[in-house]
């Protein structure tokens, strides 16, 4: 019972584990990936990094050297609960774990917007394109467009170029100027990163087009061409700017959605982010949630990137060590020098980025009646409109249950937020905070074998 359970072995989970072990505590990290590193360090088994591998190697070495840290990889948490101060996790290998101290470090996944053809093979999320490339050198296509919004489009395009993919263009829907300078104000590393990406892209003559978006993908059974267009500040297509280009794949990304599934099951309080209305875990200065003994760090407390995840993980690890009586508060202060101010500096910057790279409402003008909104259940824009206007659905949940939109295997991870926005617009009232929270209610976090479930009761 004394060891800390860490859900998620990304940067946040890893750095927390190291702090707990340094203080003499025990921890177990659960991650569905076969290896530690999370979404950022999604490298192959033999660590081959194009960049920023040193920090991973150091963290991984320290974790390996501490016998008090157990790593359970390729293991998924399919259910979580918190009762009377004890958290219980059910794992897909049929076992369960209980503990009084738990860290939620479940990260985030790509936020997606639909457009006609976004479900064709060859269409991937920006993070997905990056993930398969990092993990095994797999390429989503030979000639691709990278599109969406956010600073993340640049590293994705740069990695694809380095891997030999012909990147036909980076389309940034927002019009952003001079953000490299902002970066410099925060962190030299970020500044250097950005300069490097621009160098790679300009050497490969990749056009970076601000205020452009992919509004349609077409092809017979896979992507063969895309329709791109200039969009205004609200993301509405500017008439007369439509271009059609041949390509065999696209990577689109619209920022990230914090993964709140486990957090929701544990009943921790959440906030709706004032800038992008994403649901994030509410934490105090020590990264502790509203539930005693449950901490959270990394993207699940608000998207902020790897550096913020690392710092939050450290702060959480140190706070856990104090709560478990492993170190004194004085010692904790010594170990946390500079962390809190660094955290608020990066958080501030992350919020500034969120404002600049906001998703603007005009994206809905790209939809046509037959555009699939829910990929799993193949529910179209027209069907969603129908349950609102013909059947009288007046809230997100009812529209979902009547149309099956969001009822499929991904449990609305991909379409939930976007459909809530569509329904809000159709009803004429934006989704409420609680409706947005409700999207993350997945008592069964991941599918679990019925046989495993049955055997558990033995």
């Amino acid at each position, binding site marked *: 019972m004394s060891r800390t359970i860490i859900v998620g072995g990304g940067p946040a989970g890893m750095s927390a584990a190291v702090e707990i072990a340094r203080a003499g505590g025990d921890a177990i990290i659960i991650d569905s990936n076969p290896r530690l590193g999370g979404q950022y360090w999604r490298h192959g088994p033999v660590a081959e990094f194009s960049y920023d591998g040193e920090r991973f190697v150091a963290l991984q070495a320290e974790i390996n050297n501490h016998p008090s840290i157990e790593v359970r990889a390729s293991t998924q948490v399919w259910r979580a609960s918190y009762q009377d101060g004890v958290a219980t996790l*059910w794992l897909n290998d049929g076992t369960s774990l209980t503990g009084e101290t738990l860290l939620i470090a479940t990260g985030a996944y790509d936020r997606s917007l639909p457009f006609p053809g976004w479900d064709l093979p060859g269409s991937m999320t920006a993070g997905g394109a990056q993930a398969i490339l990092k993990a095994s050198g797999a390429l989503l296509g030979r000639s691709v467009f990278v599109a969406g919004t956010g600073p993340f489009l640049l590293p994705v395009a740069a990695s694809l170029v380095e891997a030999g993919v012909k990147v036909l263009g980076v389309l940034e829907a927002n019009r952003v100027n001079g953000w490299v300078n902002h970066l410099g104000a925060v962190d030299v590393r970020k500044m250097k990163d950005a300069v490097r990406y621009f160098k790679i892209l300009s050497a490969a003559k990749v056009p970076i087009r601000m205020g452009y978006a992919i509004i349609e993908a077409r092809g017979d059974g896979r992507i063969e061409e895309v329709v791109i267009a200039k969009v205004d500040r609200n993301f509405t297509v500017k008439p007369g700017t439509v271009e059609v280009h041949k390509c065999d794949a696209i990577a689109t990304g619209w920022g990230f959605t914090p993964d709140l599934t486990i957090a929701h099951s544990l009943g921790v309080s959440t906030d709706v982010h004032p800038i992008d209305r994403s649901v994030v875990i509410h934490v105090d200065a020590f990264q502790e949630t509203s539930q005693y003994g449950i901490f959270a760090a990394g993207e699940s407390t608000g998207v902020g990137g790897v550096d913020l995840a690392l710092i939050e993980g450290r702060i959480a690890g140190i706070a856990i060590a104090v709560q478990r009586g492993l170190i004194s508060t004085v010692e904790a202060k010594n170990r946390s020098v500079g962390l809190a101010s660094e955290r608020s500096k990066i958080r501030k910057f992350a919020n500034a980025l969120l404002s600049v790279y906001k998703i603007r409402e005009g994206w809905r003008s790209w939809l046509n009646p037959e555009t699939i909104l829910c990929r799993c259940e193949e529910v179209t824009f027209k069907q969603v409109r129908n349950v609102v206007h013909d059947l009288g659905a*007046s809230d997100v949940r009812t529209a979902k249950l*009547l149309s099956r939109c969001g009822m499929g295997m991904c*449990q609305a991870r991909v379409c939930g937020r976007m459909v809530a926005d569509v329904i809000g617009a159709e009803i004429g009232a934006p989704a409420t905070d609680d409706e947005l929270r409700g999207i993350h209610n997945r008592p069964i976090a991941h*599918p*679990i*074998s*019925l046989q495993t479930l049955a055997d*558990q*009761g033995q």
Partner: protein
Amino acid sequence: MKTADVVVIGAGVVGSSCALIMAEAGLKVIVVDRGPIAGGTTGAGEGNIMVSDKEIVPEIQLAVRSRNAWFEIADRIGNNFELQAKGGIALSRTDAGMAGLRALASHQNAHGIETIEVDGARLRELEPHMNPEIETAIHYPGDGQCQPMLSAAYFLRTVRHLKGEVWQRTEVLGFSKDKDGSIIGVRTSKEEISTRYVVNATGTWAGDIARLAGSELSIMPRRGFILVTTPAPKLIHHKVYDADYVANVASDSPELQSSAVVEGTESGTILIGASRERIGFDSRINMAALERLAKQAISVFPVLSKLELLRVYRGFRPYSPDHLPVIGEDANVKGLFHCAGHEGAGIGTAPGSGEILTAMILGKPTFMDATPFLPKRFQGVA
């Protein structure tokens, strides 16, 4: 002030059935719900339209009429709610259990339910994936299925087309009565509606409305879980359940009861129900219930061991002290009609209940003797 012939409180399957049948009979109906449409138990139910699990005569009569009424409604307003006559199979793996099933079947048969005893070979034709150890069962061709939320939504859509109204997110605050104590209006959070008739179709919450009107009614929640699997090609063709299920329904034990009720849906998922617990409105997931349902379902259909659990539904069945629905006028408040407490059968028996209530309001004969359903059986007349 708004005027209506009838105000139906509750936009679940029961309220929307009442509203549909009344609107079709020419009454001006306003449906009022404090939440969205079908946001109560109806949104958590399985959609079985069962005649096979009914034992008591009035229940059988209500179920048989309702089952036919379902198909008649589909003919009238269009089958947009996945209604199908898929048939049910009841089985038991013990001799005593089978003997019980046979006795029940002949009793049901005498009251108009079609029952066919099938042997192993026929069973394999009906359900190729069923555990080969199961050698006999009762086939009920009359059992049907629908999608309950879509049903309620389409019923209410028709009500709107018949000049009725559906007020969502409208709280009922109280009732206006004349000096004789008869209802003359319903006060809501939107505006007051002038009416002589109110239908209380608030399911598990029906007691609150009765109290608000100055009467009383005991309707309690009985928790149930349903497992939903990941989508699969058509593996299971009927609704298949074992005899223990029937025993559970009638049982008075508050602890967890469950037995496998397995069926496929139009969308490819397989539903495994249904546990029954009387522990109030506790919405937490009971792992023991899930484990037990999974185990029981696999024992009937071993092929399920190759599928995964995707979602869990949780709902609270509204039940009355004698497990029969409450249909009819309140013994204390004139003009207040209850239609609630349908427990695990509210979807199946909603149309018949609506017909009884409509007949009562119009002063016409009901299709069956509805005395066993009258609220006065629980209400001391004041």
